[in-house]
């Protein structure tokens, strides 16, 4: 708490404090942990939801926008399953929700998806997927050249999300972890996978950049070699953060060790610095003019720690972890990231580049939610609840006459006066197909299922060939994706009529009429019933198939799964 107060009261000579002046005045009067975890979703609308609604609506007024009408229950239901669990709703789940007459049914559903044991595994899987991609990329741990264990990373994350570990605890563990990456290792600690391949190369440049970017929303990587071109970052800042990682070593982490199957380990060891001064272990770096400068560990807010390089005197990474956990940027970045996950755009673009050079679109709201998130002891499920119960999240994605100008694709900052359509992620498509075709449980154990999914996902990942491991995905609405949806193996399985398949079960269910079967497919894929026009189309297809139900169902199901409406979260 003291450190936190000091940070906020610090004079404004420092870069970051100027941001606080602009968009961030913290209320220090709160009590941290006085709220019980269980009672977060009350009957009625939580105060945080009302605040979101109000602060977003203020911008609508300011920009003379009229929001789109609310989305239907069915649309909202599809959204929330996709965004919280990473898949579309089953037909039964959709029917349950639509059938409920309870006024409070939306918050009940949110509650169920977040807190009911039935959904814990899926919830944890979805957030594990998101965070695995964030922490080690889509390709991390998928080849033999690195000691990253994707499985170990996922095990750690799954456990954290399933138990609802407070976010700041999770970050502290990821930043300070020691141990071995793979579950089979004796001193296994899955959290080490975040840093294990980022500390040895290039004086831990990747560890420095990834840690500040991922958890604090601060991009310092450019300042490794020179002052930042347009934010106020100076080169010394980079190296002062970098100095926190100099005790850290990844043992047996190289290609050779990986090939030899030696156990890697992330450890902290005494650091002496190039000059060998143990009690003041410094680092050197090159200035652009060719001169050499010196740096010691100093956090982004200017807090210095002891310069001693001995781990038992001061463990630099643990100090860094403590400072990160105390930093207001921690919550702010997570709020921004989480908002972007649900609403399609964050308050800044990109979400992990914050600072005076990139002012947020809704500064008050960002500040408010950051404070609340912290008040609730960094409880992710509370944050999710507030966002998904808000008005902006519940708006239709249809553009109306009153909000044409609210289009982030036109370079406007998002005003959230409608729900911005976006494509499913590859993982969401995969899980949705599994659920929609009722293929759960037919693919073996959890590990086996994940292995199959990862194998399938690999076709979309491609790397840029830099030393920072930048990468991209071809699951982005381009031709390879459409080819996969047209002809891929996964789609062939999803639309097959083999024994036990969705099509076979529908076709062979004597209680269903032709029409019921088509309606079922529309609900399974699009979470809605077909229009009259669409039913006519189905009838035509049945006729072309000379009355063969199975074949007609296959045609209709293939068609539904290939639509824009299916692949978009709308």
């Amino acid at each position, binding site marked *: 708490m003291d450190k936190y107060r000091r940070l906020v009261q610090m004079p404004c000579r420092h870069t970051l404090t100027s941001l606080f002046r602009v968009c961030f005045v913290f209320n220090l009067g709160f009590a941290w942990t006085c709220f019980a975890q269980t009672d977060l979703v009350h009957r009625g609308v939580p105060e945080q939801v009302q605040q979101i609604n109000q602060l977003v609506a203020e911008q609508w007024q300011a920009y003379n926008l009229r929001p789109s009408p609310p989305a239907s229950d069915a649309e909202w239901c599809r959204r929330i399953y996709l965004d919280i669990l990473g898949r579309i709703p089953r037909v039964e789940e959709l029917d349950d929700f639509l059938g409920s007459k309870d006024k409070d049914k939306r918050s009940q559903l949110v509650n169920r998806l977040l807190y009911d044991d039935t959904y814990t595994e899926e919830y944890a899987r979805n957030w594990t997927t998101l965070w695995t991609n964030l922490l080690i990329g889509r390709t991390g741990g998928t080849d033999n050249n690195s000691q990253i264990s994707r499985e170990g990373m996922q095990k750690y994350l799954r456990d954290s999300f399933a138990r609802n570990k407070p976010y700041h605890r999770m970050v502290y563990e990821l930043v300070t972890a020691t141990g071995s990456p793979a579950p089979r290792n004796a001193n296994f600690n899955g959290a080490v996978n975040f840093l294990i391949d980022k500390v040895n190369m290039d004086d831990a440049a990747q560890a420095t950049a990834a840690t500040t970017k991922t958890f604090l929303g601060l991009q310092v990587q450019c300042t490794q070699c020179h002052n930042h071109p347009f934010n106020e970052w100076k080169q010394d800042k980079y190296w002062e953060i970098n100095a926190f990682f100099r005790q850290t070593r990844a043992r047996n982490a190289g290609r050779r060790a990986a090939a030899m199957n030696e156990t890697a380990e992330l450890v902290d060891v005494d650091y002496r610095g190039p000059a060998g001064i143990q009690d003041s272990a410094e680092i050197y770096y090159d200035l652009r003019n060719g001169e050499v400068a010196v740096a010691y560990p100093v956090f982004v807010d200017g807090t210095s720690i002891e310069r001693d390089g001995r781990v038992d005197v001061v463990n630099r990474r643990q100090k860094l972890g403590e400072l990160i956990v105390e930093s207001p940027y921690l919550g702010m970045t997570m709020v921004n990231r989480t908002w972007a996950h649900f609403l399609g755009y964050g308050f*800044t673009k990109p979400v992990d580049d914050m600072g005076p050079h990139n002012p947020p679109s809704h500064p008050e709201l960002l500040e408010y939610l950051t404070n609340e998130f912290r008040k609730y002891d960094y409880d992710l499920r509370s944050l999710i609840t507030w966002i998904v119960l808000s008005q902006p999240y519940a708006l239709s994605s249809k553009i109306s006459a009153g909000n044409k100008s609210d289009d982030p694709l036109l370079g406007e900052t998002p005003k959230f006066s409608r729900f911005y359509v976006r494509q499913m992620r590859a993982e969401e498509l995969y899980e949705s197909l599994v659920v929609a075709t009722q293929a759960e449980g037919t693919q073996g154990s959890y590990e086996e299922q994940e292995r199959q999914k990862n194998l399938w996902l690999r076709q979309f990942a491609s790397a840029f060939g830099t030393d920072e491991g930048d990468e991209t995905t071809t699951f982005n609405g*381009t031709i390879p994706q459409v080819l996969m949806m047209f002809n891929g193996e996964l789609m062939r399985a999803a639309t097959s009529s083999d024994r036990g398949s969705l099509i076979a079960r529908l076709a062979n269910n004597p209680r269903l009429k032709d029409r019921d079967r088509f309606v079922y497919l529309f609900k399974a894929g699009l979470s809605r019933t077909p229009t009259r026009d669409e039913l006519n189309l189905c009838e035509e297809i049945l006729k072309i198939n000379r009355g063969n139900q199975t074949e007609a169902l296959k045609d209709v199901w293939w068609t539904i799964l290939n639509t824009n409406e299916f692949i978009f979260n709308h």
Partner: protein
Amino acid sequence: MLFRTPTGMSRRHFMQHLASASAFSGSALALGHTLQLNASELARNQKSAILLWMGGGPSTIDIWDLKPNSANSGPFKPIATKGDMQICEHMPMTAQVMDKLSIVRSMSTREADHDRGRYYMHTGYVPNPNIEHPSYGAVIAHELFGQRRDLDIPPFVAVGGSSEGPGFLGMAWAPFTVNSNGQVRNLNMQMDPERFALRLNALSRLEKKFIEENRGTAALEHAKVIEKTVNLMSSQQMAAFRVDDEPQELKERYGQNNFGRGCMLARRLVQAGVPFVGVDLGGWGNHKGIFPTLQNDRLPTLDRAMSALVEDLDNRGLLQNTAIIWMGEFGRTPRINGTAGRDHWARGWSVVVGGAGFKGGITVGATNDDGTDVVGTSYSSEDLMASVCHSLGISLETTFYSRSGRPMKIANSGKVIKELFA
């Protein structure tokens, strides 16, 4: 019909099936197997560009602009070439084609971060959170596509990694990413073509409903990409991707590795009329132990494939219509760092161009004796892009409009590097 009927022989039949919803009869169609590709004819007088992208930032001071008398010099010696310049001794095959390539030694840029540098060098613009600019591939494909309406292959193909995207030009101009084996996954429809046509027809009707609900441009883009995919699936031009059909001798000449195959594939695609092909060679981020990596690994791969590409294009008469651009995000620090590596350096570095309208065998601009700074006029990404457009006959008066209607000059109003043209 939402999906436009494309051109082409076999496709016409195919599309007739698409045209009527209930036309589920008639004979099976043989798609994409019967007709021979008559590529060289197709490509005559059509301009194309091939970008050799060196991901990670190549050390141009060790390749194209050596400083043997400086303390910053690495161990490599300069050798004579067929052009009016010297280059690195570990590029002997390329030295033999330097009469067809020219080096710009006075690139000076400001983006020394990988992401930012990649974006800037690909688009001519610095990254801006409010807008996404189209990259080389999208711009050139967009401008040259009109010359070849018969092309079914996407006009922007990225071999290997993945290039920067189409920005505000839209997903229809996005790179079509393939691996260097030319293998296109999931290309074969797993059913009777008539049945496929039936499904497409039904799909077109469902797509239309969602588009008309006015939920933004993404829905319409989805339909456009479907149309392009259908074109591709039913096209005999896909034979251009069968890089394995090349004679063994030529495969060896290019090098039996991803980059070598990628360059060979690029030639095949250009020959088939594709206006823009990007081929990636990564692994230039040599912060440590740079010289053995360059000498034993990167340079031999580059030398073989790059020289083979120039030769092969030239032998087929394609070089005069095909611009080659070799570049990365930035160069590397002239000063060798404490771990025998070089770090990021954008202030003075080199790129290489050739083919199309470019003059060969010359150098443009220079850096100072220790390689740290440009002497005289320096050039930017915008200037390079303007020069490439000029070499392809694309007017620099071309203006794009962002989605919000903001006009943007092609190549960000860069100036043509005059020395590169006769």
